[in-house]
């Protein structure tokens, strides 16, 4: 389009000004600070000495850091794909319904999403209480005895994963519902005439067509779950925190409990690199699969 360069530049400048100011102030500047901090031995607050790459060397040798990387990866594996699958399943079930019934059922599935994490913690801590928890019946049935899920290492991550899926799935469900609604009803009718069974309709029509939404969901979930913190922190505190350490929790612990601001910044940077790498990688892989 024929544009007036000057007025366009001016408009652009005015429009992005608030954003640039706030991001410069609240994101770029602190991030640069963080990078700088990672080369010092600064405490939580205040200045530290320049120590070169000492923090980085330490990080690569730190067994707890390695544990945290492993746990984070484990958690991602437990939540991203299963959570997305569950969301798709629920969306499929909900999309069949109509009218007020659909609203009610959707509300039941979506409500956990609006809860603060502390509330989620309180609810589930109470539900899984070894002595009085509602769920111990079920747990005893599986494990043969009551289990303190948050103190039994093999149970911990799967437990947090289940809760995370329960808590955050509402958003993915809505994404999938939107995707399902975009599939024209005629396709199902055509498939019906072609003799497709219910299962074939899913595998041969729904699934391939919902794939782009799935990619979107998986990418968002991956980024969010790599940054897992609150749930793990709340459920682990007082117990065997090292065995269940995840990256952001380690950042928090180093900064606030161990007063090691510099080292904490180093880990934060490492996490950033991991998130970027993985999300770009996953997105590429999924997209290629989708294009096949």
């Amino acid at each position, binding site marked *: 389009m024929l544009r007036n360069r000057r007025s366009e530049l001016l408009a652009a400048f005015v429009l992005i000004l608030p954003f640039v100011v706030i991001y410069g102030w609240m994101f770029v500047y602190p991030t640069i600070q963080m990078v700088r901090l990672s080369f010092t031995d600064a405490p*939580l607050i205040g200045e530290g000495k320049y120590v070169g790459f000492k923090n980085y060397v*330490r990080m690569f040798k730190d067994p707890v850091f390695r544990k945290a990387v492993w746990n984070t990866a484990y958690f991602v594996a437990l939540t991203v794909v299963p959570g997305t699958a569950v969301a798709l399943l629920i969306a499929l079930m909900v999309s069949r319904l109509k009218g007020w019934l659909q609203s009610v059922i959707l509300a039941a599935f979506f409500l956990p999403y609006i809860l603060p994490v502390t509330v989620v913690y309180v609810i589930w801590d109470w539900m899984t209480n070894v*002595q009085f928890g509602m769920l111990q019946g079920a747990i005893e049935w599986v494990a043969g005895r009551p289990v303190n899920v*948050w*103190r039994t290492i093999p149970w911990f991550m799967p437990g947090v994963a289940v809760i995370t899926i329960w808590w955050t799935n509402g958003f993915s469900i809505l994404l999938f519902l939107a995707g399902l609604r975009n599939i024209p009803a005629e396709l199902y009718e055509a498939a019906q005439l072609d003799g497709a069974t219910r299962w074939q309709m899913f595998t041969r029509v729904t699934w391939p067509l919902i794939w782009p939404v799935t990619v979107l969901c998986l990418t968002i979930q991956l980024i969010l779950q790599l940054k897992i913190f609150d749930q793990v922190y709340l459920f682990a505190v*007082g117990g065997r925190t090292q*065995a269940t350490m995840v990256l952001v929790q380690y950042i928090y612990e180093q900064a606030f*409990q*161990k007063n090691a601001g510099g080292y904490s910044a180093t880990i934060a940077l490492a996490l950033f690199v991991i998130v970027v790498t993985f999300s770009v990688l996953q997105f590429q892989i999924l997209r290629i699969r989708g294009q096949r």
Partner: protein
Amino acid sequence: KETVVWWDFLGGGDGVRMKTLIEEFNKEHADTIEIQATTLDWGVPFYSKVQATAAVGEGPDMMTYHASRIPLAVSQGTLAEITPEDMAAMGLSAANFAPATWDAVQVDGKQYAVPFDTHPIVLYYNKDLLEKSGLIGADGLPAGLDGLDNFNAALKKLKDDGNEWGIVQVTADGGFAFRTIYSLLCQQNGEIGTDGNWFPGDSQEKLANAVGVISNWVAEGYNPSYTDYPSTVALFTSGKSPFMINGVWEVPTMDDLNKQGKLFNWGAIELPVLFDRPCTYADSHAFAIPANAGKEVSPEKHAAVLEVIKWMEANSLFWATAGHIPANVAVTETAEYKAMQPQATYAKLTANSVFDPKSVNAGVASPLFDAAGNAFTAAINGETDPATAVAEMKAALDALQQ
């Protein structure tokens, strides 16, 4: 009129009592001083926040503080010194406090807080159930518990007599259980030591012994495994366990239930001597003044803060209803206090109390507690043996020095 900005971490029952005290104070000083109190989340959040705000000069005028956290706070420059002049202005001195308590607020010979209470752990008991098993002595107090063998025998008897559990304490949180373990370590004359020299001498073995006591209880089925804090209290108050080891802060819970007629006859005593000498872990709620960076405190405000502390110390009898033992010795010697039960019964343990070591890594919600949580949660529930857990803990603490 001066306003004193006050932060505490006292939620729930403690919080209600502290609020009463503050209201009382404000009423009495309606023309001169007003406390503006804010309650914050207990633990790491509170201390991180104090550290952060003090560093930028935005901290409160005064606050409650755990004595055990003082060495760390001092190393971070968070606390202002309480000078002898200040103490004089309040009319207080070392003589007003039990020696261990007084020592807990000193770092390198300087005082950084005024102790308000001592809050040890104690042994709660269900008098009705003990009587049934013949464990109540002539004085109406539990009898025959001293010595590990005796105590174990008592637990066995209680279990045999049909009680679901013999004793309950927090086993889901090694950091919490460390309070008991530390007490038992101390009873063997063992020490935690301090930075660079953790568990000196044969303390490691003694620590393993202490851990072994609890893991044995769990293994024998006397003490439920992996039990978290609320369940611990619930198991005791619902009569499923005749004994409970817990902080004195649970006294109000029992009191309230008792008043509602929902509780059995109960009491609380100093931890029995299971090893060589009486010794119980304790911490202290103290009043501290933050060193607000770059902020000059006016003499008037300072005086007001001192007045608040002085008043609180003088009126700490009410605080005793929260179960805590007032740090001000004068208060514990009043007739009113002596009539208070079970507070008066366990008050004498202040003479035998042991505080956290003076380390920047010690204190509530500190790396020391953290290390204990990591090492002992597994050990007391029988996932690892005590010796391994102790070695693990020592390794974790040694790693802190790097």
